[in-house]
């Protein structure tokens, strides 16, 4: 009886997730376009990637994107979590408002920010009020990547604040009160008590944000299409280009295999940490 219940789900996972991934790894050792059969080429696709400047750039940009996103997202989420810590009506409403962008489509959010970051958009109008020169947010290769980060930070803060808030509430009140009696100011309290107490949760967020950052695609495609120049070329966009535009499936598959290796390592670390955390509790 249990077999009849589990089989459909397991079958779906195998057919539509596990098999395609294994097939992609196999494909990464082949040359393939839709017209001819797969031709075994050994490590040629990987050699291509190592020599290819764009792939190095995609890895580098993805790495920079990830580091910036992890830093700003965790920093702002911590600050907002501390601001909204007390249980009150206004805090509950603000939390909900902050959370809403998280469930909106990245497409909608990206289009709105494209408009805000337009040369004639609101951001530049605000800079103008302060007598600052306008920026070419998404159109300049120096600011494009950080502009994409800004969009992701804004969209993600509410969700991450929420997670840190529930961790924050589990810190024993006595510890925080004791530090207040000792005369610790808010900044000292933040760095000496709250951040260390939340460090396991922060570390978990660090890994989950890293995992999702390595998969960034939607915002990049909508906002910059990898440009200007190749300043926002990221790994998934690279894979997408090679598979959908250049029809070099073997190379796309090799890049995909490298990405999945990175993700598996991150996920294993994640589960190891979760296990450890459970042990402590």
């Amino acid at each position, binding site marked *: *009886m*249990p077999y009849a*219940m589990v089989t*459909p*789900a397991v079958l*779906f*996972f195998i057919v*539509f*997730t*596990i*098999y*395609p*991934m294994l*097939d992609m790894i196999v*494909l990464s050792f082949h040359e393939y376009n839709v017209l001819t059969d797969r031709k075994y080429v050994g490590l040629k696709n990987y050699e291509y990637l190592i020599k290819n400047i764009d792939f190095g750039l995609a890895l580098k940009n993805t790495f920079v994107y990830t580091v910036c996103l992890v830093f700003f997202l965790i920093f702002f989420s911590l600050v*907002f979590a501390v*601001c909204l810590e007390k249980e009150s009506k*206004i805090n509950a*409403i*603000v*939390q*909900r*408002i*902050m*959370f809403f962008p998280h469930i*909106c*489509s*990245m*497409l*909608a*959010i990206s*289009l*709105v*920010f494209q*408009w*805000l970051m337009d040369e004639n*958009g*609101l951001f530049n*109008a605000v800079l*103008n009020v302060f007598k600052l020169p306008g920026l070419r947010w998404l159109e300049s290769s120096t600011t494009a990547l950080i502009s994409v980060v800004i969009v992701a930070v804004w969209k993600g*803060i509410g*969700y991450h604040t*929420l*997670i840190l808030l*529930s961790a924050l509430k589990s810190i024993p009140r006595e510890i925080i009160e004791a530090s207040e009696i000792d005369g610790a100011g808010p900044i000292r309290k933040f760095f000496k008590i709250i951040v260390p107490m939340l460090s396991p949760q922060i570390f978990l967020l660090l890994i*989950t944000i890293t995992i999702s950052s390595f*998969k960034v*695609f939607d915002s990049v495609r*909508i906002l910059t299409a990898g440009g200007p120049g190749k300043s926002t070329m990221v790994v998934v966009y690279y*894979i*997408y280009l090679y*598979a*959908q535009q250049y029809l070099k499936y073997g190379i*796309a598959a090799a890049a*995909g295999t490298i*990405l*999945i290796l990175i*993700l598996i390592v991150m*996920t294993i670390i994640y589960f190891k940490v*979760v296990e450890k955390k459970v042990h402590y509790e």
Partner: protein
Amino acid sequence: MKNKHKKIAKKTISVAVKLLIALFFLFPFYWMLITSVKPYLETLQWPPTLWPEQFTWSGYEEVISSMDIGRYLSNTIIVTFTIIGMQFFINVPAAYAFARFEFKGKAAAWGVVMASFMIPGQITFITTYFMFADMGILNTLWPQILPFGANAFAIFLLRQNFKQIPTELLEAARLDGAGEWKIIMKVMIPMSMSSLIAAALFSFIGHWNAYFWPLVMTQDDKLRPITIMVERIKDLEQGMNYTNIMAGTTIITLPILILFLFFSKRIIQAMAYRGMK
């Protein structure tokens, strides 16, 4: 007395800070809405107007008349609800078996679920596309539906809930001669409604917003969901017509907003649970 003043001042500052935070997150949505009802020429004005000098529905009218919006909306709706329906019949029994039965190969089956949780569509799309080509269903909506028939997170969520249901209830139902499917329908599901609704909400939000998967699975506009076609508004004219673009953006955001107004507590709880896992 002095203390009291200090307290009031502190309170005012704290409320002001919170209002600023709320504004920070609401403003882009406000900007989206008012741009969608500004005439195109007004969107080109410098500095931009914070409140429309003139109101117009032309953005919405042009979006609706320039494309077969009914078709794209119905594609999105068909895909989203077929997925939710399929997931019900696939995930619920699987979660029940993982929660309440011991059987040979359980660990291996669980391993498959866990592995699928980690493998992203951003990678599997390359070869999945060929598979659907071989199956000859590229000119249907199935490539957007089938890969999501089983959902690892929903299985986690439901399994957790099914585990907590007292064994006595199951035994009693079995003594009454109820089969396993009947137990699922009459005992497990009524007692796990909140997880079930959470799983359905996740699927709705995820697939209503779907962008990447339909982008790589479809070649033909008539199979595309509303998200991809809203992005297309950018290409309809020379230069960016933000009145029309924001009208399209509002159309895809509105259902999510309505859902959030009704279910915000449930959505937030479930998402927090997911994040803590």
